[in-house]
């Protein structure tokens, strides 16, 4: 009887084998014994799982390193310390395993390859609203914490934000009979303003940039009676620096639907 090369029993022992090897092993006591020995040795390697750390530490791999590893983009030198860490960190190995599994998921393949392109959407934009507000709240909290003496407080990327004045939406607000124009307060040294109008689902209905502090609503934007809308305005006060107003809600022609 011709036996398969011993290494080819490895995938069979761990569930990846081909049917031909499986048929041979079934009828061959020698290869069956070898598979049993492989599995027994494997069990001894699985036991140490109980001793390993599962929580994240400062030494754990960052997301880009994990991504580069599973995509096979690490060179020999850069891979060495990564391998050393993974040998002792069950947490990072689980991230590597998860990333590899996700990248092999056929349902994600079009997105991962870039072949898929999302159609112009609306619903996703709703996340701009609450998340934008949450970010603003987080920023406000950070400003408060900077008032203390604790040097450990993380610093902002650019401290000029702390002194910037945001524009304030003046009209429309709350319930209005109709909307002809949007008006907001001016910001010192603002070079331009950007207005965004959203519907109740967060879809952006209209975006416009201007150097003025009022704009007329264009005819192409139709506001539905009793519809609920939001708007905000951002001011550019210097190169690459914008400050945003709060989001303001209004309804047209009576209580919202």
């Amino acid at each position, binding site marked *: 009887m011709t036996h398969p090369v011993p290494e080819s029993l490895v995938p069979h022992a761990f569930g990846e084998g081909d049917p031909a090897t499986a048929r041979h092993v079934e009828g061959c006591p020698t290869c069956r014994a070898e598979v049993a020995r492989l599995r027994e040795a494997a069990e001894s*390697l699985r036991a140490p799982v109980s001793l390993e750390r599962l929580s994240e530490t400062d030494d754990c791999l960052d997301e880009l390193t*994990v*991504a580069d590893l599973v995509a096979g983009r690490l060179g020999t030198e850069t891979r060495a310390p990564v391998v050393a860490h993974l040998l002792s960190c069950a947490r990072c*190995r689980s*991230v*590597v395993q998860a990333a590899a599994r996700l990248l092999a998921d056929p349902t994600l393949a079009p997105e991962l390859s870039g072949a898929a392109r999302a159609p112009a959407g609306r619903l996703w934009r709703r996340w701009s609203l609450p998340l934008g507000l949450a970010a603003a709240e987080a920023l406000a909290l950070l400003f408060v914490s900077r008032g203390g003496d604790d040097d450990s407080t993380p610093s902002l990327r650019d401290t000029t934000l702390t002194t910037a004045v945001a524009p304030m939406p003046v009209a429309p607000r709350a319930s209005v009979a109709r909307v002809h124009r949007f008006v907001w307060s001016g910001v010192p040294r603002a070079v331009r303003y950007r207005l*965004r109008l959203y519907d109740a689902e967060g879809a952006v209905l209209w975006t416009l940039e201007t150097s003025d502090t009022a704009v007329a609503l264009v005819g192409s934007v139709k506001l539905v009676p009793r519809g609920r809308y939001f708007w905000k305005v951002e001011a550019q006060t210097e190169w690459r620096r914008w400050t945003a107003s709060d989001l303001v809600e209004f309804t047209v022609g009576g209580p919202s639907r």
Partner: protein
Amino acid sequence: MVESWIAPLEAGDPEASWDLFIERYRRLIFGAIRHYTTEPDEVMDVFARVCEALRGDDFARLRRCADRVDPNRPFSTWLVVVVHNLTVDWFRHRDGRSRLNAFAAALPPVRKRIFEYVFLEQRPHVEAYELLRSLGGPDLSFGEFLRELSETCRAAASSRGEPLMAGLAGPRPEGSLNPPAADPAELAEQQQVLAAALESLPPGDRLAVRLYVVDEMPAEQVARALGYPNAKTVYNRVYRALAVVRARLEQAGIKGGDL
């Protein structure tokens, strides 16, 4: 691939950048989240958490990645790693000690505490075992504890899906169950023999064995991560490593089933 969202981000217009980014990647984000849960409310909550984390601290996470993106480093690979980490963190936070979810609440008392220690607090199994005993838990042997742990893992995986549970608690301890080591000290001692056996192998081969045998990653993915030419190389290295382990254990008078 050109990442169109990077230019506006670098030009100081993060909202415009965000619009481009989310339009390009929202399907990938949703798809990756659905790998862990298909419950609509959970999917939307996790999606919101992912968006919040990416936008947080003045888009710091996206900025860090944008600094290192190049055509040979597809951004989507990084993004799925981020989504995985945030999803697992979200579930761990949501299911925290004060709010064990319906699954954990229905577990028998011992398994509920194991779930808390291992899945939520990420304690190593041995530490969870000692904690269980020291805080008035049942007087289990380590082997009995591992059996309870394995059953907890099995129940969690069938309830919430294997990928999520693997993210929360790592690989299952099934291999150590037949029969298990008598106590953690014995396990640690046997581990020294194993470690010495593996020490003779190159680190890459040791990791190949861990990823393929313990973490059950497909051989092709192990090969890609470790720079091996193909899956056959992984099989060769694993075979060699297991032979070394077997020989060393036999020398030490330890049978595979003792571990």
